[in-house]
């Protein structure tokens, strides 16, 4: 009797939760259906399904914002940023974790301390530094800049992980005659695979979607814009043409959703590992 009761209770609870999750995602559903409507259809009824699929919205926005170009920009910025963050942070964290000296402690502190500096506190001067170094108004420059912004968290996470790797591994490789670079890349780095995944996931979500830094750095020319930035300026110009605005939203968001669907398990794991370490 009692088990029956809890079983029925579970089913009811499950149904309620599924309905709740659908309501939760309803705004995204509305965005998608309205991106497929004509202007007049959006204006008459937002919640109705589209009567004729207005795929022309997509081709219009695709051309207008030069979607392939923006996608490439996002790809370059995110890819370059990630490569650098992973490389410079892993080698530094490894050396810092293995060296027991006062200098090493100070450098480690200098590396992770910036996590407490809010970006808004330095945004103007970052922009100026970037200009002095000729890094502004270019996708490559923006990608390079992310190396420093991503490094503190990455060093912190790698450092915690390296401490768990026994030093005997280093010693035996050194005895076999490996140089320290060789030792790091053929022995240590492969052992860091799971942390690297975590860092890559956290940083891809962050750099791909970042807004304020691209706004300050690459907003000047349509050739250097990112997807989010283009969606932002596009909506600014078309505040009343909601069908185009919604199309631009869907197109900006679609790559992230597709990646999420395929890598869901790793993304959730990566976020948990990153947060618990961070």
């Amino acid at each position, binding site marked *: 009797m009692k088990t029956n009761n809890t079983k029925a209770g579970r089913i009811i609870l499950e149904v309620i939760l599924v309905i709740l999750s659908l309501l*939760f995602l309803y705004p995204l559903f509305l965005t998608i259906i309205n991106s497929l409507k004509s202007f007049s259809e959006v204006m008459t009824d937002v919640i109705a399904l589209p009567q004729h699929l207005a795929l022309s919205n997509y081709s219009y926005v695709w051309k207008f914002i030069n979607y392939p170009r923006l996608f490439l920009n996002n790809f370059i910025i995110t890819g370059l940023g990630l490569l650098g963050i992973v490389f410079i942070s892993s080698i530094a964290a490894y050396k810092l974790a293995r060296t027991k000296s006062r200098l090493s402690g100070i450098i480690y502190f*200098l590396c992770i301390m910036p996590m407490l500096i809010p970006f*808004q506190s330095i945004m103007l001067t970052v922009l100026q530094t970037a200009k002095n170094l000729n890094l502004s108004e270019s996708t490559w420059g923006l990608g390079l800049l992310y190396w420093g912004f991503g490094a503190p968290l990455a060093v912190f996470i790698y450092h915690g992980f390296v401490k768990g790797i026994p030093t005997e591994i280093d010693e035996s490789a050194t005895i076999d005659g490996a140089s320290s670079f060789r030792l790091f890349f053929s022995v240590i780095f492969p052992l860091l695979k799971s942390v690297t995944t975590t860092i890559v996931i956290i940083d891809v979500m962050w750099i791909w979607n970042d807004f304020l830094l691209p706004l300050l750095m690459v907003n000047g020319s349509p050739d250097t814009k990112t997807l*989010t930035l283009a969606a932002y300026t596009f909506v600014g110009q078309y505040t009343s043409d909601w069908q185009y605005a919604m199309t631009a939203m869907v197109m900006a*968001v679609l790559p992230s959703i597709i990646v999420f669907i395929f890598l869901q398990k790793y*993304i*959730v794991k990566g976020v948990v590992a990153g947060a*618990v370490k961070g």
Partner: protein
Amino acid sequence: MLKTLGRRWREKLDFGLFTLPVLICIAVAFYIPFVMTIRYSMTKWNGISKHPKFVGLDNFQQIFTGDSNFANSAWFTIKYAILYIVIVNVLAILLAVLLDMKLKSTSWLRAAFFIPYILSLVIVGFIWKFIFMQGFNSLGESTGWSFFGLSWLGTPGLAFISILGVSIWQSIGFYLVIYIAGLQSVPDDLKEAATVDGAGAMRRFFSITLPLLAPSITISVFMALTNSIKVFDVILSLTGGGPGGTTYSIAYDIYRDTFQNNLYGYGTAKALILFLAVLVVTIIQLTVFKRREVEA
């Protein structure tokens, strides 16, 4: 002798080669700009003239005595941060407890609640702007609820609630995932033992689950705090600071002073105050929560 000396130099060289790249990058991204911020905060500068005029601590004095924008945006940010931290964590814990039960749709549910978190906040703001401005009309007509007829972005109090709600909608999945991970490390036999001892579901939750969740709570509150104190993107796209400038956060106020009003020196002074506030609040929060965690 010579060999050991050579080895020590090699080690030093290695140390430099491994750590210098990161130091240079972090210096460019944080330390150089930070020092420049301190310098500019004591100047009057419009960004155009070659030589910023040194004014000492005048900017700071003006911010604390005669700047109602700063006071308003600070109050907005404090209100927002407190409500955001409390609501998002309470909701996420409740939802995590439900999703921690063995349900058939668990993986769908977790993914569904997490999806908004992978979207950019600016885009989330626009999507909701559309829903508040257009979608609520249609929903109001088809349901007849006056709730949808309210001006959610046009009245100050409601615009605040809208920003809060949208931020929570976007990020709850993140906290949910942290709490589910925390719950999975709570041993089942403890709960079973409590059940045998006659503890009800409520009692079990408050006496066993919640104390053991302490590490997850520390992390989540820390993340919620650092994120909410910097709230910017969602306001920019959702309300643009309106109606009547009632939804400016500190971060937005700094952005406006610096890049829209060209008050470079004044803006950086505010930016420095924001940094100090974040520093103090974070240190207090971490000490308080760490202490509690040890006791639990």
